[in-house]
């Protein structure tokens, strides 16, 4: 946000903050060790609000759980913003000093009365008011979010709506206050750091800025494309339209992980040429023309990854990779060599040192320092720089040494996949504690917690459908259908269903999901699908290992 993509806080700050809004995140299951830090904060007296359609195991700990309608986050944020302004609780000095666009923002949220917010979110107005006041009046406060915010067709607006609240209250750029997106994968942050974004060079340097580009061109002796590339959703579109005909997939399983996965598979099948580089013969690899067996990036090779607190840490080779598997770096270097543009076979450290010479954010992070101090948080601009605990402290400097931070008006739009009489149930998807994404990695170990993927519904809905726990049902969306056993979950209200995404071979949830995506980030709306649930005929064998885990706060 504000130029560089990274959470503004360090984990330690949440241990002493005063108010935490955990918004669209079930951190207790999806980010358990972050939740340890969060719980230290709660035990130290922080008020915890969780905003989530499901009363998750994280929400069990909250002073207040706000079970809003799926996809009504902007409505809630705008109503909170308006309430803060009309109550005079916004941080006028900070807004004046460090932001732009407040008036337009205030105007844009003006229609968002508590009542209107309540109408859209389904929450009582009083609880919206209470959260607004607690957040605004806290000495320190953080908003933490994950995929519940970003897996929507308006993901970027969702994030901006939250950023607006931080700007409104000055809860950014100070120890204990900030904006904390917790990354879903171990190197999402590092991928961004390294320029794996359509419009960025390493270190978040703008690809359209000739000065930045020039540094890279000078070192590499080659021109760098001068305009932004495509993100994944645009790439799929381009493939569909025949604009992209060849694809090199590294460590990704789009044949199963994309929304509306049958459609994605047919697009991949239509390619002229596809290379897949992976640890496993994934469903995507099965469609490929060439497969490079890769070494595991965290246990069989050296390198770095960056965490959600912008901490760059080293990964190290502990195992010899099996068979012909090779380090990603080796494969890419060998490929370059075969293409006639070889650069030799640099070590991971040599590559990293080149990166440091080009990315000021990382300049001070030598391998030795990274090892000695247990990782460094960017920006770390020189060998004597200690790394940065929290970002945007300079918003409080006088005079302001940078461009002010902008407010953005964030209009609310409902989920694309509308509920109807035919599709009356809102299905949302997510992770479980012991599993991960399409399960390629996490299926490898014997988890006592693992259960078959089921469609989880409120007991009242189950009763209305006339099914018992364990009965198999058909879940039908406008795009496809899957069969799965049904499980009653008291954390769900009537009209809301949940499915985990981890076992697409058994239950391909993404046959149901919609490929409507956010035009800015390219993320698809995995979190909001309209479905109906049909009981299957009786007598089908119960194939679930049904198990509920109690998670009591204490």
């Amino acid at each position, binding site marked *: 946000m504000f130029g560089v993509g990274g959470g503004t806080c360090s984990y330690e700050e949440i241990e002493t903050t005063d108010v935490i809004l955990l918004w669209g995140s079930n951190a207790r299951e999806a980010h358990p060790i972050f939740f340890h830090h969060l719980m230290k904060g*709660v*035990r130290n007296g922080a008020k*915890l609000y969780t905003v989530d359609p499901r*009363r998750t195991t994280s*929400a*069990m*700990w*909250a*002073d*207040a*759980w*706000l*079970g*809003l309608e799926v996809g009504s986050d902007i409505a809630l944020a705008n109503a909170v913003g308006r309430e803060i302004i009309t109550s005079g609780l916004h941080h006028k000095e900070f807004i004046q000093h460090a932001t732009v666009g407040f008036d337009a923002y205030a105007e844009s949220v003006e229609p968002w009365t508590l009542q209107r917010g309540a109408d859209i979110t*389904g*929450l*009582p107005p009083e*609880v919206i008011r209470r959260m607004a006041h607690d957040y605004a009046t806290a000495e320190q406060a953080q908003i933490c979010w994950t995929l519940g915010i970003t897996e929507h067709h308006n993901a970027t607006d969702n994030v901006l709506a939250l950023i607006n609240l931080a700007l409104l209250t000055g809860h950014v750029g100070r120890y204990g206050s900030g904006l904390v997106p917790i990354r879903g994968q171990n190197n999402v942050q590092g991928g961004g750091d390294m320029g794996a974004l359509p419009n960025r060079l390493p270190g978040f340097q703008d690809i359209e800025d000739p000065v930045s580009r020039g540094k890279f061109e000078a070192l590499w002796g080659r021109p760098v494309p001068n305009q932004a590339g495509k993100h994944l959703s645009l790439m799929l579109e381009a493939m569909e339209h025949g604009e992209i005909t060849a694809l090199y997939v590294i460590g990704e399983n789009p044949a199963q992980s994309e929304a509306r996965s049958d459609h994605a598979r047919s697009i991949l099948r239509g390619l002229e040429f596809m290379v897949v580089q992976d640890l496993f013969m994934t469903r995507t690899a099965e469609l490929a023309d060439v497969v490079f067996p890769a070494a595991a990036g965290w246990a069989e090779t050296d390198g770095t990854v960056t965490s959600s607190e912008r901490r760059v840490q080293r990964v190290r080779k502990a195992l010899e990779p099996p068979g012909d598997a090779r380090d990603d770096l080796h494969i890419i270097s060998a490929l370059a060599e075969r293409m006639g543009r070889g650069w030799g076979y640099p070590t991971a450290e040599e590559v990293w040192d080149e990166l440091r010479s080009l990315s000021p954010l990382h300049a001070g992070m030598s391998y030795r320092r990274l090892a000695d101090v247990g990782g460094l948080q960017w920006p770390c601009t020189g060998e004597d720089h200690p790394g940065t605990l929290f970002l945007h402290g300079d918003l409080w400097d006088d005079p302001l040494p940078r461009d002010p931070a902008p407010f953005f008006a964030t209009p609310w739009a409902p989920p694309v996949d509308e509920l109807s009489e035919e599709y009356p149930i809102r299905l949302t998807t997510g992770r479980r504690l012991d599993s991960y994404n399409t399960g390629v990695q996490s299926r490898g170990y014997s988890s006592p917690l693992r259960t078959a993927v089921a469609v989880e519904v*409120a*007991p*009242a809905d189950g009763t209305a459908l006339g099914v018992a726990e364990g009965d198999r049902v058909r879940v039908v969306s406008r795009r496809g259908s899957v069969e799965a056993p049904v499980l009653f979950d*008291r954390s769900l*209200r*009537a009209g809301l269903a949940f499915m985990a995404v981890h076992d697409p071979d058994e239950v391909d949830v993404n046959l149901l999901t919609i490929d409507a995506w956010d035009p800015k980030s390219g993320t698809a709306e995995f979190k909001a699908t309209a479905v109906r649930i049909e009981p299957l005929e009786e007598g089908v064998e119960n194939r679930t290992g049904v198990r*509920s885990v*109690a998670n*009591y*706060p*204490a």
Partner: protein
Amino acid sequence: MSAEPTAAERFAVDALLGPPSPSGDGEPTQPADRRVVFGGYRHSVESRHLLLPALHAVNDAVGWVSTGALNYICERLLVPPAEAYGVAGFYALLSLEERPTRVAHVCDDVACRTMGGAGILADLEGRPDAHPSPCLGQCDQAPAVFFQRAGEEDTVLVGATHDRVVEVLAGGSIEEVPPIAPQAGDPSLRLLKRIGTVDPTSLEGYRDVGGYQALARAVEIGPDRVLTQIKASGLRGRGGAAFPMGIKWEAVARSPDMPHYLICNADESEPGTFKDRALMEGDPFAVIESMTIAGLTVGAERGYLYIRAEYPLAQSRLQNAIDSARAEGLLGANVAGSGRAFEIEIRRGGGAYICGEETALMNSIEGKRGEPRNKPPFPTQVGLFGRPTVINNVETLINVLDIVLEGGAAFAEIGTGESTGPKLFCLAGAVARPGVYEVEFGTTLGELIDLAGGVTGNGRIGAVMLGGAAGLFVGEDHLDMPLTFEDARSRQATLGSGVVLVFDDRTDFPDISRRIARFFRDESCGQCVPCRVGTVRQEELLARPHGGEPLDEDLFEEVARVMMDASICGLGHTASTAIRSVIDLGLLERSRG
């Protein structure tokens, strides 16, 4: 572990906690409509103190705590089931297994075992509804049996016989017996003056003989001057540690950390001790009045009276006193017109001697296992719910009434220099008139035994247990010892909780010693290694001579030393003192032959 509660279990819990609300706690009644739930961690912390009362509610109603009942309590209070199980299993009177609806706990402890308790128990052996019990605090009417009755009030049978126990187990009832008040009518009495002469259930009766004048006076002169009088009185705690009261009260009264709490420690469980029971059963308003004065003085708005579960009569009398006092404005939002609020809540123990230790007692109220805390910090700094807390036992608090009415200086005139005021002693065993006796500090042990009618049995003293199982045994050479803190200290003795349990010289002291060893092993909380293992090793060492081997005195001494030096709390520190005194008196040797 999943299991559902029965209707009766649910009813018992809801009767205590109220019906579940849609959003106030863990389990809403209408999950379908649920959009908001308040509470979470905060609710769990704030309601944890209701765990033991909730467990009691189920145990009382159906006789035991099933998996389904435990789960329901856990859902309502947001307590993890493993923790609730650990808490429930800490208390001997809570059952985690189904058992008969009536259960007899037959005292076979040091006083009752020689008075027939051991025999009754032997005759009941094999019955699933009869268990041995540590001291029930009825030593003046030994032998005693405590009955738990599912769906009915618990009750106590004194002067028990085997036949009566069997009758009661089969559904028979128990009539209330008049209190034993050997000094009743003696005009010099201060602490016992109303016992046996004034109706303990009538606030009016209490007021007719001067009750609640002390509270009126305390309100009139204000907390600072009450504190001044307490300090001037030289009053020391009667629970065993003899800590100066004024210092404790002042520390809490002056602490800026709010809120403050007052606790009356009525978990009288030291074997041989029954004086607090006599006060609570016979003069409950005095207990409530003195707690009220203490609460106002130290700036507490809430007082807890933690009473052992084996005292059902005392509990009901106290509850009646609290209710009556509240109805008359002597408790509540404006105590006796003072403009200050004070409330008293009774909390019942669950059968755990260790909960008489002040910090274990606090943990027990908080809904945790009754494990003592490390000190420092002391309760005056970090006490109940982490707040400054005054904790006094019943007898100590009762003294406050006279101090407020007559002044600290007058009180200090009674007794001796370091040991001011009157003192209660629990006379039992081989004496003619067992009971609670009030004397001035300085009365000798011999005079006290004479007051109780002298030694019965064969008339020859074998040994006197002074101060309880955590105290020690003394011989005839101590009959001239004035009963004061300073004399006890100079003769390496202790007054402890005021136990004077007399054994004649035909007593089987090795058996008594083994019973004491068993007691400490049973009652050790198990937290620290020296006590958890030391009490086992001590019992094993004493069992060996029983089989004919001589006692390994050196090893016994080593075991005793580590318990004394390195245990967390007083239980471990004193778990070997009484047995060691038996050894020192040569009684372990003498009786073996």
